[in-house]
């Protein structure tokens, strides 16, 4: 377990050491909040859907976690390139411990990034409907973080270099975000879009956070959390299998 701890700690040290990265990755969520939140807010209101900014807030929080998490996982490719992964793989610890330490470290980093975006949405005017639900929001955020970090590791285990990274961004990460209901309510959209969204893991993450913050969820928070837990364990298992197959 010491190995898991030190791998986790490495991610945390590196995260806090690169303050530019922390501030930099707040830029995109801020843009979404301002442009879409304030830009589309009035239309949303006129359509009788209520406060769009409060609706969008949890979606943007989830987006921040998604991007940071996937990226933290994908960084294994960099570790591989810069040789550090070899140092880890010749150590007398199991591949599973290495994968777990990295996943937990990356997830913690993505979670913290999510908390920063969350604070940002609060500063810009999102109000939490009930403080009692705050822990549920935080747990959901951590599950989203762990899921996508593990997914990033699984994907990274399949690639030898960054050639495929753009592919992953365009065909996995972007669709996952845009089709998740982070930006629009899933009730009332065409059936095919609803169907796609119901296969998108992030839909459940967004819905859980939104349910905890605004008190309104699409699938129901019980289902959201259950789906998130099951998916997270599944992708952790797949990730550690693929990671165990890496040859340097």
């Amino acid at each position, binding site marked *: 377990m010491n190995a898991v701890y030190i791998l986790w700690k490495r991610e945390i040290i590196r995260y806090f050491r690169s303050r530019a990265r922390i501030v930099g990755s707040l830029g995109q969520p801020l843009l979404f909040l301002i442009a879409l939140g304030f830009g589309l807010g009035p239309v949303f209101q006129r359509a009788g859907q209520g406060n769009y900014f409060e609706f969008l807030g949890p979606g943007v929080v989830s987006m921040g976690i998604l991007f940071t998490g996937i990226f933290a996982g994908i960084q294994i490719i960099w570790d591989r390139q810069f040789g550090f992964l070899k140092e880890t793989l010749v150590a007398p610890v199991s591949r599973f411990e290495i994968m777990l330490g990295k996943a937990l470290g990356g997830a913690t980093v993505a979670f913290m990034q999510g908390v920063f975006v969350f604070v940002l949405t609060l500063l810009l005017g999102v109000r939490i409907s009930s403080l009692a639900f705050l822990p549920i929001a935080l747990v959901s955020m951590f599950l989203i973080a762990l899921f996508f970090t593990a997914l990033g590791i699984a994907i990274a285990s399949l690639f030898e*270099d960054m050639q495929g990274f753009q592919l992953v961004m365009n065909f996995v990460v972007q669709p996952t975000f845009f089709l998740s209901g982070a930006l629009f309510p899933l009730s009332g959209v065409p059936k095919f879009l609803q169907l796609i969204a119901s296969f998108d893991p992030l839909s459940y993450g967004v819905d859980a956070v939104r349910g905890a913050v605004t008190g309104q969820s699409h699938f129901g928070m019980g289902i959201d959390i259950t789906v998130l837990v099951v998916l997270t364990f599944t992708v952790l298992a797949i990730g550690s299998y693929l990671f165990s197959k890496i040859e340097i």
Partner: protein
Amino acid sequence: MDPDKNIIDVRDLVKNFKGFTAVDSINFEVKRGDIFAFLGPNGAGKTTTIKMLTTLLGPSSGTIFLNGIDVVKEAEKARKSFGIVFQDPSLDDELTAYENMEFHAILYGIGKTTRTERIKELLNYVELWERRKDLVKTFSGGMKRRLEIARGLLHHPKILFLDEPTSGLDPQTRNHIWDYIKKLNSSEKITVFFTTHYIEEADRYAKDIAIMDHGKIVTKDTPENLKKKTNSKDLEAAFLRLTGTTIRDEEASGIDRLRMRSRVWGGRR
């Protein structure tokens, strides 16, 4: 097989990749306490062999014993008995020298008190104690190598693998690094297994040499005997006589391509 005499014992080792045989049934042993040079042109199969010796790659067939431990069957146990300095730097640039050492020590399960003492001892040994709080990215190539050697020694290994430990370094730094290695070999009785393209290093420091080419061991002997056998004035001439003068073209792997791209980008993560 006698682990007291031969600390490395390789029998009928084979590694097949899709369509070709990188290592073709090689046999060799390394005596305990030896400084052993493993030479060969690019693409001869040296790196593949080292990867198998250090558990990073599973052999297609054959056996490897390190310090009496079966590397294939007891990989985790075998890993404790060797230290390795890879061909390419394997430090975390964003961590300090001390943090890199600590990371390694914890991965190898070294307890806190021993850890603190041993890190201090080794950083002093490679003259980096004063720089322990600096990020590794501020280090020169020679300093990074010294730190890697110190790190490879943290867990008291019996064997130290050095894959081209001095490539890309100036003669001053190379001599300096060899001073450490020789001192280690004599004072701590560590067996040193190294590869290099600087054939004169093998001539100067190795007690025994194996030359590999086209996946096979071409010859094994002392530097003196190799020169005598081939009637050469120096080891480089002997090496060329044994392996020919044709240039070997290696196909770039994905990692090589990535490395090149990172050079274009300036090596930043």
